[in-house]
């Protein structure tokens, strides 16, 4: 992270980008969402493991819930566009609540490291019991000629034992 704080205009542009990105997911505009990603996107969610208090890690260095790049995210979206993505038929209702957005200068001049909290509410069909996922995110966004793009999504679930029969949504 650089020394310079991020100016207010940039910070608010980044925040708006994060909100629009979440909106595209909740409105199931997956092609729009893909367009918001850089070609070299890394999309990762490390696995949380419950260990003793002083353990050196509680997010697995090797295990991932999502371990995607542009190509595999395309596969996920292509799948959702077929008639056979049974896990999303009928589609989940999701709402991404993105808060505590903090932007800091990133490693490259056009990049910013963005920390945020994300709470995802997900309900399925007529079930009265929703799934809730709370995540801490450390993303990288990049300013390009075509506007802001997500270059990295890194999100850690705040739960080790996910209480949902599947994860057919994006985080």
């Amino acid at each position, binding site marked *: 992270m650089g020394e310079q704080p991020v100016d207010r205009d940039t910070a608010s542009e980044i925040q708006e980008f994060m909100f629009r990105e979440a909106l595209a997911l909740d409105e199931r505009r997956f092609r729009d969402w893909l367009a918001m990603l850089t070609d070299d996107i890394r999309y990762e*969610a490390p*696995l949380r*493991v*419950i*260990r*003793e208090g002083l*353990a050196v890690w509680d997010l*697995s*260095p*090797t*295990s*991932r*819930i*999502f*371990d*995607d790049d542009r*190509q*595999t995210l395309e*596969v*996920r979206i*292509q*799948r959702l566009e*077929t008639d*056979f*993505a*049974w*896990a*999303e038929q009928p589609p989940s209702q999701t709402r991404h609540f993105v808060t505590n957005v903090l932007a800091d200068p990133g490693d490259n001049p056009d990049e910013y490291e963005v920390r945020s909290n994300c709470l995802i509410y997900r309900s399925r069909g007529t079930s009265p019991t929703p799934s809730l996922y709370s995540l801490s995110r450390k993303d990288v966004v990049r300013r390009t000629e075509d506007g802001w793009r997500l270059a990295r999504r890194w999100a850690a679930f705040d739960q*080790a*034992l*996910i*209480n*949902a*029969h*599947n*994860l*057919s949504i994006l985080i």
Partner: protein
Amino acid sequence: MNTKPESQSLAAWVEETREGIDSGRFPVRAFNDQAVYDLEQERLFSKTWCFLAHESEIPHPGDYVTRYIGNNNLIVARDEHGEIHANLNMCRHRGNVMCKAEMGNASHFRCSYHGWTYKNSGELVGVPYMKEGYEGRLKRKDWGLVGVRVDSYEGLVFGCLDPEAPPLDEYLGGFQFYLDLYLKHGLGGVEVHGPPDHWIADTDWKICTENFAGDGYHTPVAHQWGFHLGYFPSSGSTHSQGWAVSIPGKGHGIGLGHGPNFPPFGGFPDDLVAEMKQSLSPEQVEVFSRTRTAVGSVFPNLSFLMQPFSLEPGEIGVRFVTMRLYHPVGPGRMEMYSWCLVPKNASQEYKKEAYRAYTLAFGQAGTFEQDDFENWTKVTQAAGMTMVRDVDFPYIMGMDSAPDPEFPGPGHAVVPYVNDTNFRNLWSRWADYLAGEV
């Protein structure tokens, strides 16, 4: 609908179920019922060899993981001499939990209630106020952690609560031949890529065990997207080809799906194939070189799957192996543990590639996994309905299929791969346990 009197005892229901299996019928009720669940805890999980951990999860002295057999929480630890022990995760003094973490490293476990201390092997070594309080009446050797029998095969550590049960070797009964397909990848064997994916689902553990005992029948429909987009190197129309093999009287079963035109050992790196030919027997090479997808269950609740996944439609792709444990936590509810096994000797690049294929296909956000659980939770829901309490499912596929005399491996091998033979074997073993006959 034929209704049976409410007064029918559980024992009578189990007997009727046993008879039904022989004629290809199995009751819906088995998949979501409190009484059946309780009987499984009492008669099945207390007697079978249950999977605990892969040795590579606890490679160093002091490494431990906490796991379950039935509703019993166990500490599986490697002691200071390298030996693996499983002990009940309960202090012998007043029952406090010893290890609250899922994994860690410790030479000793110290109870947070009154301070009794045990070696990681389970031996009681420290008792505060020993002299003043117990005045010589407490013998430390009598009050170690409650131990459980352990035994292993090719890195798979199993535990058994029954001291009288036959050894693991006999329990597996020849299924080792097929387990090698997942475990002998190169001369170094396999290791876990990391801690297991872990999630909870309103699904009965038996539905998963059955599916993985070789349900090739669901693949072209449940996973149609993979065929449709070309990411799964097979075609729906040829998908029935291959063998279904079961070990009679043991409950284990495997489906060995073939892909016409699929190259021998396709999807494995060449150097690994060369090593596999050394580590496997000629019979195993004959069977496995033709296998595209292998999906098998070790009775009662451990499963494996090996299949290629391709990111380039039409290409062979990369093979990955997943190992999964279905831990029952209530009627119609389970905790899923899912590991990715990678060849120990393979390059980091290959391990990473295989792991990424696994997460995309069979991790908890995996594109195949998602659809399976969507189906399985619905089956479980249905099985809990009162109207279907006395309804059976048909298990009559391949009822008369004779064993293939040419097949070089042990067990009962039938063609085609789409077959209920493995499931009949699985449920009849399950029913033997519930009847108290094992």
